[in-house]
């Protein structure tokens, strides 16, 4: 198959929310010797962005977005191992989790999926994550961004703890810190000195794009 058709096939698979087709298209890319990086950047990425745009215009719903993200992941599983280490494909690594004492994960999972689908390397630490674990994992994975979710008034304080901890280690500048979850607000993010607040998954992707550049 020629490159143009392979790229189209990849894009189609994402836009029809079809994981099986995405995997097949990725294998076709390998077979047809399409540069895997190009397959991602010119085939998959624009498609997932189109789905994201439709989502923002309310043309498609959350399930479409999640299924597109899954399809994206299926294709990536085939293509990623073929990309030489020195060629950077991920926009940045994001370490994300729900803070200590809090087990709400629905919103965090949506955000984490969307980030993954949009080309971020996401390390999801799950729920009830210790303050130090956010930072340790960020160090270990050379992450650029830390994302902390908190759904309760009694646990949002832990978002500030992460910042205080980074400051005490003199490493605050190394990471972009984004916070989110029900009781958090843009003001709260400012107040604790975070680098941004994500109201929902779509705005979080935009925020992460910004933070990964800065």
């Amino acid at each position: 198959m020629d490159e143009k058709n392979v790229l189209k096939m990849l894009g189609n698979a994402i836009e029809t929310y079809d994981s099986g087709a995405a995997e097949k298209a990725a294998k076709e890319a390998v077979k047809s010797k399409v540069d895997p990086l190009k397959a991602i950047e010119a085939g998959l990425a624009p498609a997932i962005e189109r789905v994201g745009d439709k989502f923002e215009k309310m043309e498609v719903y959350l399930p479409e977005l999640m299924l597109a993200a899954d399809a994206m992941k299926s294709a990536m599983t085939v293509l990623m191992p073929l990309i030489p280490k020195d060629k950077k494909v991920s926009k940045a690594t994001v370490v994300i989790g729900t803070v200590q004492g809090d087990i709400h994960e629905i919103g965090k999972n949506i955000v984490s999926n969307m980030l993954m689908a949009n080309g971020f390397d996401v390390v999801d630490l799950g729920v009830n994550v210790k303050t130090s674990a956010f930072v340790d994992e960020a160090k270990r994975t050379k992450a650029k961004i830390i994302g902390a979710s908190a759904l309760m008034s009694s646990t949002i304080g832990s978002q500030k703890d992460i910042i205080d901890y980074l400051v005490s280690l003199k490493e605050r500048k190394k990471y972009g810190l984004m916070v989110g979850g029900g009781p958090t607000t843009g003001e709260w993010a400012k107040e604790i000195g975070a680098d941004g607040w994500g109201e929902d998954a779509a705005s979080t992707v935009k925020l992460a794009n910004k933070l990964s550049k800065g």
Partner: protein
Amino acid sequence: MKESDRKKVHEASLDVLETVGIRVMSKDARAALKDAGAEVDDSSAVVKFPEGLVDSLMRTVPSKIVLAGRTKEHDLPLDGTHHYYTTDGCGIYTWDQKTQTRNESVLADITKTAIIGDGLPYLSIYEPMVVANDVPSKIHVLSGVREAMRNTSKHIETESTTTPDEARAQVRMAAEVVGSAEEMRKRHYISAMVCTISPLVLDAGATDAAMVWADNHVPVHITGMASMGLSGPATIGGALTVNHAETLALACAMQARSPGAPALYGSVQSSMDARTGAYNSGSPETILLSIGNVEMAKHCRMPCSAGGTGGSSRIPGLRASIENAVLSPPLAAVGSEVMNGIGLADGSTLLSYEQMILDHEIVGLILNSHRAIEIDDDSLALDLIKKVGIGGTYLAEMHTLKNVRGFYSPMLWDMSPFESWVAGGKKDLMDVALEKAQKILSDHKPEPLDADKTKALDEIVAGV
């Protein structure tokens, strides 16, 4: 639902519990279930229920209980013939109507809403309405319960207990108020909400606490929250099934631990906003799910506290009132016994004193229109009809005088003409509601709690 449909949901849930199982993060609950004959894999924490086990454990769940007040006049029999309303709980902001802003909620909000709640005739159960952001977080729950115990004699439902120690402390508090631990076992002065984590997980801390509640026979509102499309299937049948399986599993764990431990079918299911996944508790799907929950509760003869008010309107007022006025009547009609939540907007996060009073009016209307129609000699009034005959009026009849007092009379509005409204300053209903709340707060004097009991509560809270 048809009887055969309820059976299908029940059997599908048993199938799930037998083949998939449920992850039980609480060691205590797992141990109790293992002893009772469940198949337990401690490494994955998954518990499976072999055929017959669920139904046999469920046999000891009491089908009728009485939720007790601090005083006997506030006792609430759950025997399938009553409807009660609670306050909504655990909000995090308080609404300021004047500035149209929300502020962090504080302990005084719990004190005040407990006093107001005590004075509201159609409110039966007080649940601390907000989190007291001005006290240390380790005593959030206990200080809220203490304020409730002090300022209302109604039954208290406690919401956010996430450790067994927190449960133990509340058991001691309730025992102090009731008189003794033995008495408390019989008089269910407090009940506790325990959430499952959909799909198919029982959390460690909250379930450990549930074992403490079970030991002490504190009734537990088993609150499954499976949300359609998110944490449960996007169909009513599927979402009911996941929720039913979780509810049965926790009820069984409680019975395995302490046979006869009271439990309520306390689901608060919802649908997600299809676009963002946001929690949507004001949707028609929410109503259908709650109706299904009530039916499933009856199917397994559990007292039920499913659904009620508490929509998703971001601010109090018109939308919140529309949602609440629509959400609740069908539930009363199918016989939900305890209906949740007056007074919070925005998915149970925002307390509004105005909304509390508005919702109370809605609830008054609902309770008064969901009564059995009694037909007896007096209500038929045949003699009277013959006496008055054709034409004439019933106005000056003794029978009328006797019965007219029973008509529902709204708290928030009357039938005075438009001109009176203009003369009264064209008040918005929100303003009227706030004035009413303030008036109850200044005039109503709840039955005080004995000084020595108050002191004992303070000591328990301070000792944490």
